[in-house]
């Protein structure tokens, strides 16, 4: 099997007595667009900070491309963490040249990258004259320098207007289609759902779930049922083994399912018992509802 791009092995880090990251383990393979999803303060940025050597873990270790990390390995990674960081008194292009110097990249790719993020016309302007959205675009430009094999983006659409958000997301999807590995930290479920192939859900420094986004969305969906006599319906469905929970919402019986079932089979089964349904529909769970379910479980 191919060496994973990133292996995180039981990482822990505390700030004083606050556990920012608690025994976090994760493996990311080449070509995955991996979303790290979690509410504010869940340890997303701490994780990425450790992976980029600006924070030091208390315990655990990690490997990039199968090797223990050093500064050379970081030159194969493009990163944008929290906020765009540049020398304010230097021009956009000069700032990118400094990044290219560190990464050992050539200057001639800079113009193309600036065009890609829509900053080419402002390339000689000083960084401090840029608006928040422009700063964010420049940070993405910096992350693209030197043909990185992995792109780390922490809240990349923070502070951008809807049009720019759509552009940046398309850019991420573009990059992912070229076979690059992307690690995207976000608290925006919609963003992860739209762009990522895999997701890890993080809360209070613990990993609650990790796997393919489509598995999260497909598995354990819900079935909505309506019938004339709801109480008979409820008793009948309570005998189904695949139901984990049932509740009545707005005169509709909502069954949470442990596994996928064929609605046609349910309809036939109930009809056989003399219960005729006026409504049946399979509801795919959104990442959001799963996310909130997991978080409420973690609070208890």
């Amino acid at each position, binding site marked *: 099997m191919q060496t994973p791009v990133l292996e995180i092995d039981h990482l822990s880090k505390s700030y004083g007595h606050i556990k920012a990251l608690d025994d976090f383990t994760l493996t990311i393979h080449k070509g995955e667009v991996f979303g790290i999803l979690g509410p504010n303060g869940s340890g997303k940025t701490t994780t990425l*900070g450790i992976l*980029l*050597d*600006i*924070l*030091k873990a208390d315990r655990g270790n990690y490997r990039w491309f199968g090797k223990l990390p*050093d*500064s*050379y390995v*970081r*030159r194969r*990674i493009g*990163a944008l*963490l929290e*906020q765009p*960081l*540049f*020398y*304010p008194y230097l021009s956009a292009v000069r700032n990118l040249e*400094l*990044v290219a110097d*560190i*990464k050992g990249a050539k200057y001639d790719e800079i113009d193309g990258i600036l065009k890609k993020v829509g900053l080419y016309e402002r390339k000689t302007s000083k960084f401090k004259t840029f608006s928040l959205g422009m700063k964010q675009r420049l940070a993405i430009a*910096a992350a693209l320098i030197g043909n990185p094999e992995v792109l780390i983006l922490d809240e990349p659409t923070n502070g951008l207007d809807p049009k720019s958000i759509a552009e940046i997301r398309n850019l991420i999807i573009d990059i992912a289609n070229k076979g690059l590995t992307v690690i995207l930290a976000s608290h925006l479920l919609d963003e992860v759902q739209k762009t990522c192939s895999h997701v890890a859900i993080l809360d209070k420094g613990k990993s609650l779930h990790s796997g393919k986004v489509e598995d999260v969305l497909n598995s354990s969906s819900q079935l909505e049922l309506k019938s004339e006599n709801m109480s008979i319906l409820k008793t009948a469905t309570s005998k189904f083994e695949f139901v984990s929970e049932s509740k009545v919402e707005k005169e509709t019986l909502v069954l949470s399912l442990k596994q996928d079932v064929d609605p046609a089979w349910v309809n036939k089964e109930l009809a056989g018992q003399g219960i005729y349904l006026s409504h049946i529909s399979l509801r795919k769970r959104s990442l959001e509802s799963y996310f909130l379910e997991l978080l409420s479980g973690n609070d208890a």
Partner: protein
Amino acid sequence: MTGIYAALLLMVFFGAEKLVNGVLANASTSAPVTMPGFTLYSFPYVWQNLAFFAGFLKIFLALIVLFFITNEFSNKTMRQNIMNGMSRNQFILSKLIFVILLSLASAAILFVSGLILGLSYTEEYTTALALQKAIFIPAYFLEVLTFSIMAMFIAFLVKRSILAIGALALYSYIIEPIISGSIPDSVAKFLPGEAIGNLIDIPNSALMKMFGVSFRENVSPLDAIACLFYCCLFTGLIFLFYRRKDI
């Protein structure tokens, strides 16, 4: 800021004699004995004289270094540079190289100014005479280097410009004087501030000789060793400090 420093340095070098003679001329109007006018610029004394005056300006150099480093923290560019693929040691090393180059440039200005002034103010000279006390040039380099590395150390430790300036002043004007007051002189003279200050003594001028005071006309190897030791110590501590630290 570097330009302002260089201009100040040149002003001091080329204006020092006028200033000293002006003060003396004022003093001699009221003094019972007439003070002799004299030159600061003749070989071989020019080196020590200029180095001594230039020493007063090393605080500007230290401030340049201090802002240069605290800027990396306030703009968080140190963070970004390391994320981009610099190692922590490379980053610290790049700052150290800057400090060394800055000190070298300052010593080069001293050398060129001394050469020009010495050549034009000394009537008869030989190469040997001209370079007799040229040891004050490397001594001056060591003086500004040690002080700048001390500023660099404080900047890396404190990270914020205002706090770093405060810490540098607090140490130089309050903490070190208190410590040196409470320990024997033989030890106190090796405290960083004292060692840096002792490297180049007050020049013996005709004036000093009139009063019968005599200062050292050479560089003490012990002071030089102390300064070198502090350069290594402060640099080493920075590297050590950032091995395990969050940035």
